[in-house]
C-alpha cells in the first residue's frame, strides 16, 4: 500500500515537469534518481524485510512454545505419576505388638491411598507388614501379616476390590533402622506399600 503511493507520487512529479515552457520541450532529462524516493523505497523494503522476519520469528517461537508445551505436559504427567506413587508409598506405623490402624495420621494416609486407588482403576498394590526386633521372631512373621491385612481390610472396607491388594510379611527380618532404641523400633513397626501393576501413568484424585 505504502509502496503504491510512493510510485504514484514519483509519476506526478515527472508529469508536472514536462508541462512547463512553450518551446519544444527539451528532451526530457534522463530520469535522475530521486534521493528522497529511493530512500523511501529502501525504507519500505527494509520494513518489509523486518515484517517478514518478525513473522518468521513469531512462527518459530510458536513452534517452540508448542514443543515445550508438549514436553511440559509429558513432564507434568510424569511428575504427577511420581507424586502419586510417592503418596502410594507412604508408610503407616503401629504400636508395639499391635496391628490396629491408628486413627489420625495413619487413617489419613490410608484415605489418600483409597482415593488414589479409586482414581486409578488399573493400579494394584502390595502391602508388606514389618515388626521391630523385640517381639518373638516367629510370631513377628504372623504379626507382620496381621499388619498388612489390617491396612488391606481398611481399603477393602471402603470399596477397593480385594484382588487389587496383595499382602506380605517380613516379620522383624527387614528393619529400615538397625538401631536398638525406641526411635528405631517405632520406625520399623510399619506397613510398606509397593505398586505391583498399573503404575506407569497415575492420576491425582480430584481435589488433591
Amino acid at each position: 500500500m505504502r509502496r503504491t503511493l510512493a510510485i504514484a507520487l514519483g509519476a506526478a512529479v515527472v508529469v508536472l515537469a514536462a508541462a512547463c515552457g512553450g518551446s519544444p520541450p527539451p528532451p526530457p532529462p534522463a530520469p535522475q534518481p530521486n534521493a528522497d524516493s529511493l530512500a523511501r523505497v529502501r525504507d519500505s523494503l527494509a520494513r518489509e524485510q523486518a515484517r517478514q522476519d518478525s513473522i518468521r520469528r513469531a512462527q518459530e517461537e510458536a513452534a517452540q512454545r508448542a514443543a515445550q508445551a508438549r514436553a511440559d505436559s509429558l513432564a507434568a504427567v510424569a511428575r504427577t505419576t511420581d507424586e502419586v506413587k510417592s503418596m502410594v508409598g507412604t508408610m503407616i506405623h503401629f504400636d508395639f505388638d499391635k496391628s490396629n490402624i491408628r486413627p489420625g495420621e495413619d487413617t489419613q494416609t490410608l484415605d489418600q491411598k483409597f482415593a488414589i486407588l479409586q482414581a486409578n482403576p488399573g493400579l494394584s498394590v502390595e502391602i508388606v507388614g514389618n515388626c521391630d526386633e523385640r517381639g518373638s521372631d516367629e510370631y513377628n512373621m504372623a504379626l507382620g501379616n496381621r499388619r498388612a491385612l489390617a491396612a488391606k481390610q481398611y481399603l477393602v472396607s471402603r470399596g477397593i476390590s480385594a484382588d487389587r491388594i496383595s499382602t506380605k510379611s517380613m516379620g522383624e527380618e527387614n528393619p529400615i533402622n538397625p538401631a536398638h532404641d525406641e526411635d528405631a523400633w517405632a520406625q520399623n513397626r510399619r506397613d510398606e506399600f509397593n505398586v505391583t501393576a498399573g503404575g506407569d501413568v497415575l492420576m491425582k484424585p480430584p481435589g488433591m
Partner: protein
Amino acid sequence: MTSRYGSVTLALAVLSGAAAARGWAQDTTHALEQGVRVGITYTPGVRPGMLLLGGPSQALLDSVRTIVGRDLDYSDRFEMISLPGTDSLTLGITALAAPAAPTSHTTEAGAFINYPLYEALGADYTVSVVQPPAAAAAVAVYDVKGRALLKLVPVAVTGVSDPGFRMAVHRASDEIIRIAAGTPGMAASRVLYLQGGRIYRVDADGADPVPLTPVGAKMFSPAWMPDDQHMVYTQLRQGLGAIYVQDLTTGRRDIVPPTGELLNYAAAVSPDGRTLAFARNTDEGAHLYSYNLGEHCCLQRLTTGRFSDNLSPTFSPDGRRIAFVSTRAGSPQIYVMSADGTDQQLFAPFDYGVTGSSYAPDWSPDGLHVAFHREVAGAYQVFVMDVASRTVRQLTSEGSNEDPTWAPDGRHLAFASTRTGVRQIWVMDLDTGRVRQLTRQEGARLPSWSPRLGDTTNH
C-alpha cells in the same frame, strides 16, 4: 578352668552338707561369674565326683583329654574334681610314693591309679585317656570306691586330622557318662541356629561353628529332622518364604512342594520323620498346616478362624500331639491339639490380662515337659511346663531369653539370650541351673538342638 570350678564346688559340697529337695534351679549366671556354680536348690552331694587324670603330653591324647573333660563338665552330671597341682600325673605318683600301697596299682590300661587319694578328694569315678596297643586312643573309666576298671571306652579315630575326630570323642564321652551316670549325655549332638540370615551348626560344647547356607540368602526357623541327617528351614524371598529339606552331608536341598507360594515358616517334623507341620500366612492370619513328607502329598490345614494366628508347632515324642502358639484368646498363648488338628485346647494355663504373652513351645524328648518363653515385665523368660500337672516354672531372669530347645538328654535347654547385651545362644542345665554361652557370634538366634547324632554322622 574346670579344675578351679571343681575345687570351689568341692569346698561348697563339704560346707553345705544338708540335703535339700532336688529340683530345678534358677539361672545362676551371677554365681558363675563369682566362680560358684551351685544353684540354690541344688544338693551338691547328689552328683558323683568325677576326676579326669592328666597324662603324657601327646597331641592326640591331649586333644581327646581336653574334649572329654569339657564334655563331662558340660554334662552337669558330675562334680568335676582335679588333682591339686598343675601336673596331675606327676603329683599323683609323688604323693603315692609308698610302693606297697595295697589299694593303688598300675592298671591294665597302663595308668597309675591312686584310689585312696581320689576317694579322699571326693571322686566316685576317675577317667584317664590312654593309648592302648590296638587303638589310637581310649578312655579308661574307674570306679574309685570299687577299686576297679569299669570299662575301656575306645575312641574311634585315627588322628586329630580325622574329619570325624571331634564327634568320635563326643560319642566316647557320652559312653563314659552312660557308664558313670546310668544315662547317656548329649555331647554327641549339635545345635542349629540363625545368624545374619545364615544357618550354622555348632557342636554341643560350643566348638566348630560351621555355616550351612550361602551368604546372601535369608533363611529362617531352622529345625532338625529326627533322622539327624537333614534339617528343614524357610528361605525368605521378599516377604514370601518356601520350606526346604536339606541333606547335612551333601548340602543337597529340596523344596517342600506346597510351600512354593505364600510365606511358610516355623517347620517341625514328626518323630517318625513323615509329617511336616508348619505355619503359613494366609488372608485369614497365620495357620498351621501339615504335609506328608513320606508320600509327598496331603496338605492339610489344621487350624481355622479369621481372627487368630496359629504358629510354632512342636510334636510330642509319640507324634500324636502338637503344641503350638495361638492368639485365639487375644494374646498369644500355648495350645495343644491332636496331630490331625482335632481336640484343640489350651495347654499352658494363663490368667487373662495378667499372664504375659507366651511363645515358641518345644516338647521335651521324654514327653514330660514343654519349654516356651513368656513375656515378663517387658522381657522374655524361659518357662517349663510339666505336661501332667500343667504347672509352669520360670527358669531364667536375666536379660531377655527366647526360643528354648531341648537337648537330647532332656535336662539341658539352649535358648537365645541378651544377658550380655547382644543375642547369643546359651545353654542351661535344668538340674543345677548352670548356664554357659554356646555361641560367639553376635545376633545368634532361633536355636534347634539335634537328636543324638549316630555313628554315621562324621561330617
